[in-house]
């Protein structure tokens, strides 16, 4: 099995979720993140003192998938998260040795 991790723009989350759902992915895990990269942050001013906020809000999406699906699913995520502008984020894949569904104790692909 594989783990796909995507760092995307927050307002694309809904699109990514729908695209994955259409593809047939049944579950995913989401968390908040902040990104630092080519996309610049912004400046804030408090009583005349400027603050550079150099982190940009991002969302992390993690999906466990079967080996055979991984390429398709990377494609689906990349497509649905794309705006074409700097800061769209990264998607990466890693090998997973085992997955367990906590509720049932099932292991491997059945646990997805």
């Amino acid at each position, binding site marked *: 099995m594989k783990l796909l991790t995507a760092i995307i723009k927050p*307002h694309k989350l809904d699109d990514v979720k729908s695209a994955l759902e259409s593809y047939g992915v049944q579950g995913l895990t989401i968390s908040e993140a*902040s990104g630092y990269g080519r996309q610049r942050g912004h400046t*804030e*001013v408090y009583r*005349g003192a400027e*603050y550079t*906020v150099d982190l940009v809000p991002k969302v992390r999406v993690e999906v466990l998938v079967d080996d055979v699906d991984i390429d398709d699913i990377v494609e689906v995520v990349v497509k649905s998260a794309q705006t074409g502008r700097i800061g769209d984020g990264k998607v990466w894949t890693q090998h997973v040795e085992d997955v367990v569904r906590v509720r049932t104790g099932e292991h491997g692909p059945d646990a997805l």
Partner: protein
Amino acid sequence: MDTGDTAWILTSASFVLLMTPGLALFYGGMVRAKSVLNMMMMSFGALGLIGVLWVLYGYSMAFGNDVGGGLLGDPAEYFGLSGLMGEGNLSGTLPGMAFVGFQAVFAILTVALISGAIADRAKFGAWMVFAGVWSTVVYFPVAHWVFAFDADGYVGGWIANRLAAIDFAGGTAVHINAGAAALALVLVLGKRKGFGREPMRPHNLPMVMLGAGLLWFGWFGFNAGSAVTSGNTAAVAWVNTLVATSAAILGWLLTERFRDGHATSLGAASGAVAGLVAITPACAAVNPIGAILIGVAAGVLCALAVGLKYKLGYDDSLDVVGVHLVGGLWGTIAVGFLATDTAPNGVSGLFYGGGVDQLWRQVVGALAVLVFSFVLTWVIGTVIQRTVGFRLDVEDEVTGIDQVEHAESGYDWGTLGGGALGGTARPTARHAAPTSTSEVSA
């Protein structure tokens, strides 16, 4: 001069001043976290601008001697209020300046009320221009129509004196006026990106409830203070303001319970405001049972009315139309039915044997203000939009208006949980500390 009356009006004026920050909280809690500051700033901007305009010429336009047909007070008469400071200068039993102050905060609040309709998407500079023009062209005249009563050697406004519609504390001048303006402005500015599709739930409901609490508190000054004396009329208005609001909370919550299955806190806060709006014109014209009826109906009506925007497709973001226009119309017209001559206003409505005489006056007054405000606001809004631009860039709207227009974030919880939420920040440039200064930690 009566010290007791003065004490009550100065107190009431202070209460009403607090309503605008209260409104800022009520509105601010209802928007998303990324636009809370802009929402509050529209109220604070009104506090800044309208306070000054009122002193310069606003009071004079509203309460100066009529310069034509009950439509406008003389703008020059009290310019700068210089002449009103003398000991002997009375307004009834009050020092003249006490009445000036009391009416000032009404003007501020009315402008601020409008802002709820255009959450998340109005350029701050354009809003300030709008606030100044609107108060001058719409509010000050309407206040003259409704609040300036004829006296010896003094001619006031047409609604108060010629039409003799009853609007004790501003159902027409404040709520219908602001509600109609809100509707016009929403049509000019258009919908927010994602309206009706994307999540736009309130980001801080305890803040909404706090705002509602402060509004209710302040409203006792608004309504009972409108007696401009400290006596029976004020006391009756006070009790009616209490009980209509209570009843409206019940009305809204029951409507939700039956329709949606749940009584909500946003419903309780909204119901309270709906009840306060509706009892405003009527608080000295009805008895407590009448107040309960006005309140409970206001709760039900407004709870239903706030859904209209989805059906009709206009983005009245925080339901200024659904609550202030609908509630204001209901309260104003209800006077025509429920007024009783045992109440301080001494007029009987349809249900108390007074026939339709008062009813048609109420309807005419309400419609006149509605149409006047709607049309002029549409014109003002359109001119601003076509010239300096009123609506924010859509990209900026998505990013968040607080960041774009005010260069601030409402909240930074970061240091609690790790410091990174929303980005780290460091002071730069202009005000950076001299690097050579060592830290003292005695």
